[in-house]
């Protein structure tokens, strides 16, 4: 760092840069935070608007009318119910399948294992639209149109890479000596898996399930190709009504979804700790 010896280095002119860069950091910090939560806060406030029409922000007084609208809409309620069922089944499926895959990958060695791992996590990097479009083309070519079934399978596929990563990390955290001890004490492989390994990866299983559920509940790019008039999901029916800017029912729906998200986060924080959700599920997974 030869620059340090430079006579200019200690002049007050350059010291001013300290303040400037410090202010720049603070400014971008505030901008990013506002950018992230500002719109959500405004939407939450607007969802309680008591006016019958869409008036400018802020609302003069509050009411629950848009929430009543949302909960009495047959379209939104039936699609929310669909989303819950599809989410629960696909999250269970991806977690179980993912656990089997993660367990075998963490305990085996064979040629082409690296390639197989890469293949399992690769759906993450393919844009959802391409996956949805391809599934649609392929399934209609073989003549399969089962509304919910197609969506469940597609959602399991996009959750699988995350499940495998989360569970693989969780399995790596278990000392092999525990399995070894159980085997030495006379347990067979299956007993050892169910009595030792499974209880120890419980937190991984929970975060895999929650993460897959959240993914499925929010999925649009894949689902938009696979829904039909009888089987639609909540995000898709919200999207279909979003262009219509005349009422705030979708703001109320957003309020419900935000509450649901906060609930999931609190549960995740209580069960496994927020830092671990980030460490395992999101940060590792989003790579």
């Amino acid at each position, binding site marked *: *760092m030869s620059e340090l010896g430079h006579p200019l280095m200690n002049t007050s002119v350059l010291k001013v840069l300290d303040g400037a860069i410090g202010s720049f950091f603070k400014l*971008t910090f505030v901008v990013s935070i506002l950018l992230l939560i500002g719109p959500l806060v405004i939407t939450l406030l607007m969802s309680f608007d008591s006016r019958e029409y869409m008036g400018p922000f802020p609302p003069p007084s509050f009411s629950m009318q848009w929430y009543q609208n949302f909960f009495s809409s047959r379209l939104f309620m039936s699609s929310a119910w669909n989303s819950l069922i599809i989410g629960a089944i696909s999250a269970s499926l991806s977690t179980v399948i993912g656990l089997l895959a993660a367990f075998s990958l963490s305990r085996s060695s064979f040629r082409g294992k690296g390639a197989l791992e890469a293949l399992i996590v690769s759906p993450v990097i393919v*844009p*959802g639209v*391409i996956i949805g479009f391809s599934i649609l083309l*392929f399934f*209609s070519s073989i003549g399969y149109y089962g509304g919910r079934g197609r969506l469940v399978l*597609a959602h399991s596929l996009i959750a699988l890479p995350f499940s495998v990563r989360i569970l693989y990390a969780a399995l790596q955290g278990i000392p092999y000596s525990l399995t070894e001890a159980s085997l030495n004490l006379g347990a067979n492989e299956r007993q050892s898996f169910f009595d030792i390994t499974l209880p120890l990866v419980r937190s991984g299983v929970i975060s895999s399930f929650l993460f897959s559920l959240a993914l499925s509940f929010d999925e649009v790019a894949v689902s938009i190709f696979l829904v039909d008039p009888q089987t639609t999901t909540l995000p898709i029916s919200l999207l279909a009504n979003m262009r219509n800017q005349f009422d705030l029912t979708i703001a109320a729906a957003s309020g419900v979804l935000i509450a649901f998200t906060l609930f999931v986060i609190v549960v995740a924080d209580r069960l496994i700790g927020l830092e671990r959700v980030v460490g395992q599920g999101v940060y590792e997974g989003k790579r």
Partner: protein
Amino acid sequence: METYKFRSVAPLLLPSGLLLLFLYILPLLYTLRESFKIHEQGRVGGIPGSFTFVNYLDFLKPAYLSVLSDTLFFSLIAAVLGVVLSYPLSYYLSRGSSRIGKKIVLAILVAMLFSGAIVRVYSISLTFGPVGIFAPLARYVVLSLNSIWYIETTLVVGLLNFVVPVATLTLLATINNIDPRLEEAAQSLGAPRWFAFWDTTLRLSMQSITSVALLGFSVSVSAFIVPLILGRGIIVFTTNLIFSRFAEIADHPSGAAVAIILLVISLAIIGAAQFTLKRFHSNV
């Protein structure tokens, strides 16, 4: 540790294998094949057995190329701005002194990652829309909410909303791995704070910044709802083009060709990110 052979774990890998085969590998191969078929007006799907390059050549028309250039241009802006906005956040999360403040910022980021794309895009369109907080301001400076400049800004804000949380959490790991004492040492040797930061922490995170920018770029390129809603039909991304080929004119071969082009672009971006990341790890 006892390791198993492929034969003994194969049954456990079978379910994921089947899922990948029937919902991923075969569909993608089918799309590749479809992209070379001839489209016939009024027919759903290409003519079986036909072969043509015309779907790819069609993409060279100015109308399609402008979709691609819009996609790449706005994704690039979102990637660069995403890094600029994320770095201070992750620096604060790593080096900040307030424990409560850090917990709040982390909770916001996690909430953003979990709260739905639909909710976020709707919130932005409401906030920037005719009843939102910027409408009076825009009227004051005699700027139409329908001007291209305003739509572009809204679109970039929407993309940033998805790039910043991912970028911040990725950068956080990098900054956590840089010894804070380097910065202190530089300062105690007489460097002003900005220079100490510049010459140690920022320099050491440079390669990670590159790969995070590429990550943000790939998040933006594959964005679907953001351009669909916030682009308001004025700005169309490649992803939207695929959907409209399917939904509006049922030209599957053309949609498939666009999908393959987008896939190649996405893979190239991820490949570049992996490359810089590897270089980063071999250098540390």
